[in-house]
Every structure is written in C-alpha cells, then in structure tokens.
C-alpha cells in the first residue's frame, strides 16, 4: 500500500462521512413533494397536451435545456471525430463476420428501424422518445457495420441528417418565438390528450431530436470502430 492509495482512502472516507450526513436532510419529505414537480403534474396535461409528462418537461418547459444538451452531444461527437481523424483509404479492415451474423444483421435491420421510429413518434404518449429511439436507430445502422466491416458508414449522409435535424429543432423554436413570443413555445394547440396527433409541435421536436441523436451516435460508434481497425 503506497502513499497514493492511503491518501485516496482517507479522502474517500471523509467524503463518505460528509455524504452520509446528508441522508438525514434528504428524508425530510417537504423537499420533494409540493413545489414545481407537483405543479407540473397538475397542469401539464391541459397546458401542453402530452400523456407522458416527462416529455412535456423535456420539450415544453425546459426545451432550451434540451437544445443545450443536444449541443453538448454535438460538440462531443465532433471532438471525438476530430481527435480520431480520417482513416486512410488503404487501411486493412477487420475480417468479415460470416454468414450467421450477416443474416442476423439483415433480419434485425428493418425491425430496429421500425422500433426506433415507433418509440420516437410515440414519445409524447408512452415511455420513450427521441433520445431512446435515436439510440435504437443508431444501433440499427451500427450492427451491419459490425457484421461486415468492409462497408463503412457514409459519414457525409449522417452529418447531413444531423445538421438538418438540429436546424429543424431551432427553426421550430424560432416559429414559437415569432408566433407566440417564447422560444420553443408549443405550436398548433394541444389537441386531444392521448391521440397520436396531439401535443402540437412536440412530436416534431422529438422527431428532430431522435434523428439527430441517432445520426450522431451512429457516426460516433463508426468512428471508434474504424480507428480500431486502423492499426
């Protein structure tokens, strides 16, 4: 046991005592009940018209934060692509995965696309939404790359989708700004709660989020995978 481990252990014990002392405060119930959460639960269905109240928090009440979060993801993906760089065109690929994985990838692809699209489009009604559906879309495009590494992802197409989706998100926000006076204010009324065509512009926003997250994650995974094959 060297000096570094001992000092680390002492630091962790001290921090642990501090955090466990917080437990007593956390059990006071007034901290969580009442306040903003309860307010949103009571008013969100009439105000925004989503059946999934988490969606109304994410896109209507805190839409600007979601835009900032998409920006963080964009910056991280861009930086990772920048750090890893372009692969040289004559670099060797990983060996092909063989018949079984090829067939499984071909069979899975349409179902994953369908599931991802369903989860994105029903994000305002059921658990799920743009982020989760986007991750599934990214998986749909990444699995064929794993099965046959020689056919890489078209990065130009994925960046184009990413850019258009991000621009669409901001455009919908600007329509809200000029139409209703608030950036990202929900448009087109609320509709009937629980219908697929309800909650105004929120499904469109979630569609943009889903496409952006899907394109970004797929590009990121493909970048990491290509670099691995580089050496």
């Amino acid at each position, binding site marked *: 046991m060297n*000096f*570094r*481990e001992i000092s*680390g*252990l002492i*630091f*962790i014990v001290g*921090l*642990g005592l501090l*955090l*466990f002392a917080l*437990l007593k405060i*956390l*059990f006071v*119930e007034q*901290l*969580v*009940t009442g306040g*903003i*959460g*309860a307010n*949103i*639960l009571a008013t*969100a*269905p009439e105000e925004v018209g989503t*059946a*999934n*109240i*988490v969606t*109304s*928090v*994410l896109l209507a009440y*805190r839409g600007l*934060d*979601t835009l900032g*979060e998409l920006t*963080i*993801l964009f910056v*991280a*993906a861009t*930086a*990772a692509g920048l*750090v*890893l760089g372009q692969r040289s065109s004559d670099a060797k690929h990983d060996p092909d995965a063989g018949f079984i994985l090829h067939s499984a990838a071909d069979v899975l692809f349409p179902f994953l696309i369908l599931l991802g699209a369903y989860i994105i489009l029903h994000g305002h009604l*059921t*658990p799920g*939404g743009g*982020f989760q559906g986007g991750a599934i879309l990214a998986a749909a495009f990444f699995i064929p790359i794993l099965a046959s590494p020689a056919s890489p992802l078209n990065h130009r197409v994925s960046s184009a989708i990413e850019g258009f989706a991000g621009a669409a998100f901001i455009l919908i926000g600007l329509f809200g700004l000029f139409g209703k006076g608030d950036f990202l204010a929900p448009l087109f009324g609320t509709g*009937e*709660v*629980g219908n697929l065509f309800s909650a105004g512009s929120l499904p469109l926003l979630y569609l943009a989020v889903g496409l952006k*997250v899907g394109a970004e*994650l797929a590009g*990121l995974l493909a*970048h*990491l995978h290509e*670099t*691995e094959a580089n*050496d």
Partner: protein
Amino acid sequence: MTEETTLVDFISYVGAISLILLGIFAMVTFRHLIRIIFGLMLLEAGVNLFLITIGYRGGAVAPILVNGELPTAAMVDPIPQALVLTAIVIGVGVQALALALVIKTYKAYGTLDTQILAQKIAEETGTKLIDGIPTPISDTGTGLEESLSTKP
C-alpha cells in the same frame, strides 16, 4: 412516510452514495486510464440513481397518463427523470470523447499508465516530473536526470 418507503429510499440513497464513492476512489487510486474512465462511469451511475431517488415517492406510479386520464395513485416527480434522461446521453458523449482521447494517447506513447505517461511527457518536453516547470538551461546535463531523481 411508511416504513417500507423509508427502507426503499434508504437502500437507494446508500447505493447511490456508495457508487459515487467507489467511482471517485477508482479515479483517484488507479493509474490505468481505462480504469479511470470506468470510475467516471460508476460516478455517473451513482449520480443518476441519486437524482431518480430524490423524485421517488412511495407507491407512486410513472408520470404518464393512461387513456388521457390522470391515474388515481400519486405520480413521481417528473423533473429528476427528465434531468437523468439528458444526463445519460451527455454521459455517453463524454465517455466516447474520453475513449477517443485514450486511443490517441496509446498511439502516441504506447502506454496507458499515468505514471509512465508523466515520465515520458517530462522527458519529451524537458520539464520537471512533479510540477511541469521547465528546468533552467544553465543546469548541467539535460535536466532529465534531475527530474527523475526528484521523484518521490
């Protein structure tokens, strides 16, 4: 607050704090860069669990309307859930960026041990190992021996 809820809350909080501590301990103690990233992942998981537990209420259901009607039972707080939803995605982005940097580091130096890395970087740039301050030119020798000998 019922007895059962208190127990669930307690276990969840203790688990979240333990995950946070374990993550920080791994980041402080280990010298391998991949293990430090694993520590970061544990830390993120602990923070997410902590936030979700703050919004939890005993016997409450998910904040989703069924057939357009409010459920009869109480609903959990939706704000921590939205927060964690975004935190997970940001966590994935940060981890991918960290792994990309690790790949570049390994290509450049051929090692992921932070101590060997620090030595190699000190050798390369002619700085002292401890504080990274360049050694004065008037010194005899390359300055490398001195920086290695002052190592604890």
